[in-house]
């Protein structure tokens, strides 16, 4: 820690952005703290100056028709809300225990590497956009494009993530994850699917995100393209398996699972997610 570490806890966004523009990378941002404080305590990051985001008015969920705006400081527990797309609710529910759910924020989750990016995986399948804000500018970046490589993000040193937007999400969505614990727990692999079907159950829009196996979630584009114009219940694993984990990805490993196991579990999770959507669509 630097001897002259300044601490700020602004209560308005304008002040927060002013500080970010003044200090740039010399200002360490703390949201819920579940990752950032852990790294600080382990001396894994040098703390020059600190800005706590928790007093900012960025904890909100606004639902207007089929559009959803979520403030970056919204806690994961607040996503367990029936007005939101099901994939998002299931992802938030799957996060381990009440304490982490009550502390961790949505904004922090999009930065968090695997295995801590369940909500980001669901948001990616829902084609979410991040609103990145600086003193003079606001821009919208698709979450998918936000990841530029392991721990490399498309954010400038004077910007903060202010809000996450999901516009006109597909009608059906789900999220499924594998964890070593019987209930919510650390992620080994996860899959989120969002889709629209017509009356004959033909897929008209599909997005598939895979989480927990690479540093950040990714979209399985081949599978998405394959699913288009197919009858949902006719899609089988052998048709899509090779597109779920494209060749050349660096798969992570940790104490909970090897890379090989993670990779093998993705098709299993995909089929679980798909089958739950087939059932849901047939019940409508």
């Amino acid at each position, binding site marked *: *820690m630097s001897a002259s*570490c*300044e*601490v*700020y*806890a*602004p*209560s*308005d966004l304008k*002040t927060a952005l*002013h*500080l970010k523009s003044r200090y740039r990378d010399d200002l360490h941002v*703390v949201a819920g*703290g*579940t990752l950032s*404080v*852990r790294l*600080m*305590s*382990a001396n894994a990051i040098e*703390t020059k100056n*600190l*800005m*706590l985001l*928790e007093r900012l008015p960025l904890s909100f969920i606004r639902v207007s028709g089929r559009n959803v705006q979520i403030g970056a400081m919204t806690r994961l527990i607040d996503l367990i809300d029936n007005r939101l797309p099901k994939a998002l609710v299931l992802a938030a*529910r799957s996060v*381990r*225990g*009440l*304490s*982490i759910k*009550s*502390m961790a924020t949505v904004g922090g989750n999009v930065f968090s590497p695997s295995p801590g990016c369940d909500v980001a995986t669901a948001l990616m399948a829902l084609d979410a956009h991040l609103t990145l804000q600086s003193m003079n500018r606001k821009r919208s970046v698709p979450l998918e494009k936000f990841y530029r490589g392991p721990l490399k993000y498309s954010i400038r040193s004077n910007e903060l993530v202010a809000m996450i937007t999901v516009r006109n999400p597909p009608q059906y969505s789900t999220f499924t994850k594998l964890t070593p*614990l019987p*209930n*919510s*727990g650390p992620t080994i692999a996860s899959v989120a699917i969002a889709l629209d079907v017509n009356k004959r159950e033909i897929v008209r829009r599909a997005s598939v995100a895979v989480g927990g196996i690479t540093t950040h979630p990714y979209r399985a584009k081949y599978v998405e393209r394959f699913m288009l114009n197919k009858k949902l219940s006719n899609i089988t694993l052998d048709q899509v398996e090779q597109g779920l984990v494209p060749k050349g990805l660096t798969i992570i490993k940790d104490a909970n699972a090897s890379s090989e196991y993670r990779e093998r579990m993705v098709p299993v999770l995909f089929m679980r997610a798909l089958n739950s959507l087939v059932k849901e669509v047939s019940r409508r």
Partner: protein
Amino acid sequence: MSSSKVNIIRFVLNDEPVEVLVPPTEILLNTLRERVNVKSIRYGCGEGSCGACTVLVDGKPRLSCLTLTISVDGRDVTTVEGLSKDGELHPIQKAFIEHNAAQCGYCTPGFILLLKALLDRNPNPSRDEVIDSLSSNLCRCTGYKNILEAAMSVVRRR
């Protein structure tokens, strides 16, 4: 500018005002144990995995090993000492005793506070919701069965 450099931190601990002078990156776990001498807060893992350090901040569960002390400036902090009123134990504490839900007791304050936070949020949780909510806390002695029974007995009495 509404922001300010924070050194002296004032908060309310179990209805009593507290004032501490802390370095910016000090975690609440260390402040409570070492500066305020509250020893019911336990250090288990230091990285959010065991829940032994759980406190309530403005009624919400917080892992004090992942909470900067500067972030509780002006807030209400509750530890298990703050639950009993006029010498009477809180119903959750009584249920833990009735169901032998503590052995060494290292994890017990964390479980009790987490359960309080859950019941304040949802007075009538299902068994699965209780299991899911408590899954952030570890107990190395009881095998969880008695903790769950104690929790469900409080839910049934409501």
